[in-house]
């Protein structure tokens, strides 16, 4: 059942219960009050008759019963208030007036200390009478006087009230049903929106939001829901990105792996199957060697990345300047052979580093700088201490990186100049590894480059100060 229907039903039931009880109480109180009034008036009238009879009785001796009837007759002609009257002795009815007299009840045994009994009787033609019965003595003889008063008006009033009450009840019920349905509709409308939003999101429309602007609980739920959807969406996007990156990586990796494999297998097949000229043989051997080397490079770099992805960092207190000096002094003679000057300028100090990964980062970046130099040049390595680690700057005077390549440069297998990178035996993974190492140290890697003038790589490591 829908919530709005439930609400409507509840409202109607409550309405019916309270209104019904209230009105019934009201009607019944009104009725009782009117009845009491009628009773009092009837009693007064009855006492008057009784008094009259007793006064007459005292003034001159009751001569006979006929006189009694005459007095009553006189009373009734003087604009009688009662509807029926009956006077009787033990033996016979002395006087009777009014049509309702035929229906008088026998109340003689109920007469109380006030010499009065009271009862209500109805006549089939839907009229109600209040019967008062009393007794008095004339001499030794007991006489009974019964009087009936028409109280139909009280009953009619009650019936009328009940009719009106029923009509009002029906109207009120209908009105309250309509009102509560509309109210529930407006109250539950945001829920419908929320439900639609859930369905939209479930069906893959992750941009959809419920956007209910109200300060009540539903508004709060909507806000929480939208917040959840935001997180979900960003999570899914991240996941999709990572899947895309992964498939891109696998695509590139396959290419990187298959190309040298095709060459190696192909040349080896040529060598074993055909008699090649010495020149072709030398070519084939050269390519098998260089492509084999390329595969080796690829596997080593991949291993480095794999290690970086899966190994946890072991931070130790180390001096970046000492590490840089030791690597640079080791590399200087090799660089000198290629007419490259390698200098360094480091601020002394200690910070927390993983020395193995730091070394790998340094060697890769210096190697990249070397590859950027076309015919000799200079590479400078600088380091500075910061509050939570260190900054490393590696600059070269090489050919620089085109501006549109800078954003892609840390992607796996991305190469600015494919042919040149291949010729230098690069796997296109060096900077991917460097970026990963910087990230492991909570740091960043950034590139500034002017084409044909050189590149400066800035690495910020935040392993913490020692």
């Amino acid at each position, binding site marked *: 059942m829908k919530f709005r229907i439930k609400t409507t039903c509840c409202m109607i039931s409550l309405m019916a219960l309270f209104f019904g009880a209230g009105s019934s109480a009201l009607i019944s109180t009104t009725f009782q009050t009117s009845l009491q009034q009628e009773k009092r008036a009837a009693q007064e009238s009855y006492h008057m008759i009784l008094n009259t009879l007793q006064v007459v009785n005292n003034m001159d001796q009751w001569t006979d019963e006929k006189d009694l009837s005459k007095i009553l007759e006189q009373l009734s002609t003087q604009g009688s208030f009662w509807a029926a009257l009956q006077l009787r002795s033990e033996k016979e009815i002395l006087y009777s007036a009014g049509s309702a007299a035929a229906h008088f009840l026998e109340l003689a045994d109920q007469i109380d200390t006030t010499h009065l009994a009271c009862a209500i009787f109805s006549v089939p033609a839907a009229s109600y009478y209040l019967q008062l019965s009393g007794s008095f003595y004339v001499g030794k003889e007991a006489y009974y006087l019964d009087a009936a008063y028409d109280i139909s008006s009280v009953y009619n009033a009650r019936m009328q009230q009940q009719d009106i009450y029923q009509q009002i009840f029906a109207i009120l019920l209908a009105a309250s049903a309509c009102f509560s349905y509309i109210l529930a509709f407006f109250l539950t409308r945001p829920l419908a929106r929320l439900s639609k939003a859930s369905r939209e999101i479930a069906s893959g429309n992750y941009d959809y939001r419920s956007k209910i602007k109200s300060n009540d609980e539903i508004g709060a739920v909507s806000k929480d829901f939208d917040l959840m959807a935001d997180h979900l969406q960003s999570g899914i996007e991240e996941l999709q990105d990572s899947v895309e990156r992964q498939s891109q990586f696998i695509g590139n990796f396959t290419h990187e792996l*298959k*190309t040298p494999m*095709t060459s190696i297998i*192909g040349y080896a097949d*040529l060598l074993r199957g*055909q008699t090649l000229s010495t020149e072709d043989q030398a070519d084939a051997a050269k390519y098998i060697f260089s492509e084999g080397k390329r595969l080796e490079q690829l596997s080593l770099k991949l291993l480095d990345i794999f290690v970086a992805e899966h190994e946890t960092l072991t931070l130790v207190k180390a001096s970046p300047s000492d590490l840089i000096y030791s690597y640079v002094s080791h590399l200087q003679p090799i660089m000198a052979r290629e007419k490259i000057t390698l200098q360094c300028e480091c601020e002394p100090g200690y910070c927390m580093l993983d020395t193995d990964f730091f070394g790998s980062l340094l060697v890769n970046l210096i190697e990249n700088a070397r590859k950027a130099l076309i015919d000799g040049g200079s590479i400078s390595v600088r380091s500075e201490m910061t509050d939570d680690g260190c900054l490393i700057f590696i600059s070269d005077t090489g050919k620089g990186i085109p501006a549109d390549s800078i954003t892609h440069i840390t992607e796996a297998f991305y190469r600015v100049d494919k042919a040149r990178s*291949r010729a230098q035996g690069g796997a296109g993974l060096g900077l991917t590894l460097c970026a990963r190492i910087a990230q492991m140290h909570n740091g960043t890697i950034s590139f500034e480059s002017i084409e044909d003038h050189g590149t400066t790589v800035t690495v910020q490591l935040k392993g913490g100060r020692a």
Partner: protein
Amino acid sequence: MIHILIAEDEKPISNLIKLSLKNAGYSCDCAFDGGEAADMIEENNYDLILLDIMLPDIDGFELMEYIRPLEIPVIFITAKNSVQDKVKGLRMGAEDYIVKPFEIIELLARIDVVLRRYHKADDIIKIAGLMIDTKSRKVTRGGIEIALTPKEYELLLLFAQNPNTALYRETIYERIWEKEFVYGSKAVDLHIQRLRRKAHLEKELQAVNKVGYRFEVDT
């Protein structure tokens, strides 16, 4: 002579294909990027283009748009082994699609099929005094037909396409039987012996010790 353009940016592979095609009797040119390939197509007439998809400058798919109106058959060469790429390549009008790493013998067979489809290769191969009609699959020597089983015919065709090349038993088995070679299987030797006898190729079909067989012909 059949003229083939190799558009492949990987120098080792380009050189490998060139070397193999040269040995198989084709003449080849090499282009190392898309622009160079387009220029060469414009300047020369090629019977077939071997096209790498991941070419620098202009990629293989873009180049295909340019080649299509010229009605030169194209075989795509790529490392991408995805069905989408394959479908895209074939839909664009490529004749075939070969995925790296491939074996040269497979590339040669596919080139042969495409050239034959375009009637650029002779339907009749004349080799070692034999006439092999590839259309009717008939082999004759001096006008007399030699009855060969389908497997024997396939074997002869394989040798005829790869003259003076030592073909390994497992290579032969995998090409002809299209199944993984089981070590010690004598199927290849058995069929070659019968082919030798039937087609009188005792001298030409030489066993290469521990390797397989070579079809020795004078070139």
